[in-house]
């Protein structure tokens, strides 16, 4: 626990985006993602505009492009899936570079890739401009049940502790000559997992006792309940409103509701 209190996902800076109240940012990102998902996939230009919007937000938040792109790597498994799609989807075939690809498959791959990437980029922006604790406060302000917020905050707070415990167990195993190499060692690893569960559970019991002895009765007091001003809401709404404008334009151009067009 000597490693400072900011999570490594958070990137400290003093930008207008960082200073926005967390619940405004969460609402904005959620609205933006929903807008992107509702966009018909045939409107390719709309996704380009969305990408520009995300890039503009990243610039406003002073997030370097390299940081954002590195965090996008989380998407790789689904990129692999999307790349497979042109080969397995039946339908009309087109020939690109000597490969026979199915047209609906290409559209499907484009759809998943574009929307998935934009969603990940928006989430990354949120996580890197908002501290963990304020993120939870924001969720609470957005009327997420308090018990769920508490569970989430305990998970965040003790996640590193439990992970460290697991790391110490691994070091203890390895210093006794056990390096897991195959299925034969699953028993050892599973026993570590069992011990880790018992330690976590008992830590939970101790934490609860410590809290009860300090007056905990099932709810946490809200300490800094800073409401957002109208200007802040307006500032946060800039991103989803711009996206909404793009969405409406896309609807007008392609015609009809997004899901009626099969997207």
């Amino acid at each position, binding site marked *: 626990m000597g490693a400072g209190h900011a999570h490594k996902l958070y990137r400290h800076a003093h930008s207008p985006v960082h200073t926005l109240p967390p619940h405004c940012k969460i609402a904005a990102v959620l609205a933006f993602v929903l807008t992107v998902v509702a966009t018909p996939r045939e409107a390719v230009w709309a996704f380009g505009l969305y990408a520009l919007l995300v890039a503009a937000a990243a610039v406003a938040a002073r997030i370097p492009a390299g940081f954002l792109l590195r965090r996008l790597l989380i998407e790789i498994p689904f990129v692999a899936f999307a790349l497979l799609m042109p080969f397995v989807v039946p339908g009309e075939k087109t020939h690109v570079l000597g490969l026979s690809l199915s047209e609906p498959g290409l559209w499907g*791959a484009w759809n998943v890739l574009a929307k998935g990437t934009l969603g990940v980029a928006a989430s990354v922006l949120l996580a890197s401009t908002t501290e963990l604790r304020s993120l939870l406060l924001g969720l609470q302000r957005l009327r997420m049940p308090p*018990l769920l917020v508490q569970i989430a905050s*305990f998970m965040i707070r003790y996640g590193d502790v439990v992970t460290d415990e697991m790391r110490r167990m691994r070091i203890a195993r390895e210093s006794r000559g056990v390096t897991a190499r195959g299925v034969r060692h699953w028993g050892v690893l599973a026993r570590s997992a069992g011990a880790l569960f018992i330690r976590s559970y008992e830590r939970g019991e101790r934490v609860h006792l410590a809290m009860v002895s300090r007056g905990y009765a099932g709810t946490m007091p809200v300490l800094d309940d800073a409401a957002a001003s109208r200007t802040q809401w307006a500032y946060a709404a800039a991103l989803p409103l711009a996206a909404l404008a793009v969405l409406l334009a896309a609807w007008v151009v392609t015609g009809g509701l997004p899901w009626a067009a099969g997207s």
Partner: protein
Amino acid sequence: MHVPDGFIDAPVSAATAVVAAGAVAVSLRGARRELDDKAAPLAGLVAAFIFAVQMLNFPVAAGTSGHLLGGALAAILVGPYTGVLCISVVLLMQGVLFADGGLSALGVNISDMGVVTTVVAYAVFRGLVRLLPRGRASLTAASFAAALVSVPAAAAAFTLIYAVGGTTDVPVGKVFTAMVGVHVLIGLGEAAITALTVSAVAAVRPDLIHAARDVFRPLELRTAPPTEPAGPATSLRRGGDQPQRRSPAVPDAAAGPAGSGAPAVPGSPATSLRRDGDQPQRRSPAVPDGREEAGHRRSGGEGPAAVAADSVAKAGMEPAGADAPEAPDNAGPAATPRSARRLWLVGLGVALVCAGGVSYYASTSPDGLEKVAHDKGIDSKAEEHAAKGSPLADYQVKDVADERISGGLAGVIGVGATLAVGTAVFVVVRRRRAAPAAPSAEGA
């Protein structure tokens, strides 16, 4: 398996979000009823555990490795309500913080991986625990089956969601085959790890396994007559009513030096942790297993009291009321036969029924490999098996006319022979392992 944005269309995403919200609301109620004000810290820590254990890599072979998904494990260890909450919170945090799984697909992810996995695993586990004989082996088997079923069930649920609101045109049949096929494989790994983990927890703290609460009697706090001649000895039984309000004497302080196997100093207060004695099945493979569990217990960091705890834990193998902690050796053989015999009899019955009865209905055509070999002419050069002339060749009994009865009879005889050989090997192995184990058990 985290579904990204754009994979499921907007209306279905919204519908699954409503389903997920409902399930989470029900779970919140259930968890609060079960855990009262302990709900937040306990569920939070278990969520942290699930999050951590998903990072524990289980090497498979040649550099590949898998990890636990944790749905079945959470359902078995903390129950369906808390389990759903924990997995949902983990998914929420993964979505918001790590961008793993799209925000708009959060409902899909929670209903699929959180709710379906947990509920299916819990239902299967409870059903099996009720059917199987009581004991740790049954717990392990039940958790294996629960985890094995839960993962393909989630895959099937995903396919269902995809069939309603998928944005791509991959045929549903193909998606189903691919998803369920892959996830049966994943489920096998998940099942093995979950079963081993549950078994490890059952060895040390059986009272913590929520889904098997009625299998094990709760541990209770009780003050025993002094066991050490020179000093007040508190013997501690965990209470079923307030297991969490343990006195400061509780040996779970992780600060204690782990692995101290030194004998208890006479005169020091010895805290011993004891189980109820009436769980004879728990330790069937007698001595070696008992030693191993004792090792676990010691590594839990119980300090100098660990030795007393060990000996008492061993005494726990004896029938209820045995208060003498100084007899660790005579315990195993005294308690095991009954349960082992029952398990043995059940297994034998199942094997005989399968061999004798089910083979009556079995296909008489050769097995797949033989058939392929025959069709392709691979086996034209195969020599007749050396045992061709034996009385049981080709799974038929010589001189019995009816082919099906003959096959069944051969199966029964085969089971008998296999059983005899297996038992002989087991007895020899156990004798050899028990011989070196006895002196070290005395020295513990």
